[in-house]
């Protein structure tokens, strides 16, 4: 808190307008080593109990925000670990996916059983042909 702000708070204190919370904050601010004599007078008026309570509350607040920070750090670390794990899993498994792929009339089929059934049907159809189809004859110059 800047000196001007402390002085404004002192004026507010003397007018009886400060809250208990503001008085605790003021008690802490007045502990500066280079505090002017007037500040020491106000510090005396606020009393040891106000300063003690302010220091107690400050310690508990600091401890609570440290805990919050640790909890956040752990959450962030866990999220990163989860993301990395998911990435590795996806990378490793990408080659396992779509092992059986077939396009039938422009439609992609990935179900292994369906692909096998279609393949078998096509193969048996080819073996059952007495003549090669016209487009294949043309393609491979099978005269």
């Amino acid at each position: 808190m800047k000196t001007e702000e402390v002085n404004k708070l002192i004026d507010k204190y003397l007018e009886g307008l400060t809250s208990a919370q503001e008085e605790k904050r003021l008690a802490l601010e007045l502990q500066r080593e280079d505090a002017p004599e007037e500040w020491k007078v106000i510090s005396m008026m606020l009393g040891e109990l106000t300063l003690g309570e302010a220091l107690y509350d400050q310690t508990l607040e600091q401890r609570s925000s440290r805990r919050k920070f640790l909890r956040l750090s752990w959450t962030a670390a866990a999220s990163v670990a989860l993301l990395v794990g998911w990435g590795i899993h996806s990378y490793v498994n990408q080659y396992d996916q779509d092992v059986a792929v077939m396009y039938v009339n422009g439609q992609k089929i990935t179900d292994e059983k369906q692909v096998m059934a279609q393949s078998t049907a096509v193969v048996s159809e080819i073996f059952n042909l007495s003549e090669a189809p016209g487009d294949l004859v043309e393609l491979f110059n099978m005269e």
Partner: protein
Amino acid sequence: MEKETFQKWVFTLRPKIMKIGLDYFSSTDDAEDATQDTLIQLWCYCEHIDEDRNIEALAIRVAKNCCVNLKRKQQHYFLPPESEMTEHTQDFSPSPQEEMEQEEERQILNQALAVLKPRERSLFEMRQQEGLETGEIAQKTGIPKASVQSMISAARKKVYQELKKRMIR
């Protein structure tokens, strides 16, 4: 408040004070020590406490103060040799000289408070010792909030002038 009345209060106050100690130290032994210190201080001071005062609010503030002082004493006890001292392990507990100065300051403050009218002094102390908000004081005393505020302001300004006369030359 008479010692007998205070003894009855002890049963109500003890668990509350203990909780304050436990929140601060997380150690039952330290919390017990802080509770003992608090009760001793209140016991020594109880004859100066009016029965209509909020003893619970006062006890809580004294307890918090005792926790902070006990922690300082512990830091002093476990202080490493001077060569190993860092800014985190410096001793902030008052030296005998500082304690003497504090006592002197208390006396000066008491002299300054003597200039207040009884009602003003009572309101000043309700705020300073029990940490009550203006609204709470108004509710407790039956005085309108605006009047409480202006009486506290007048009391503070008188004490401030009085202390300035005595302390700043």
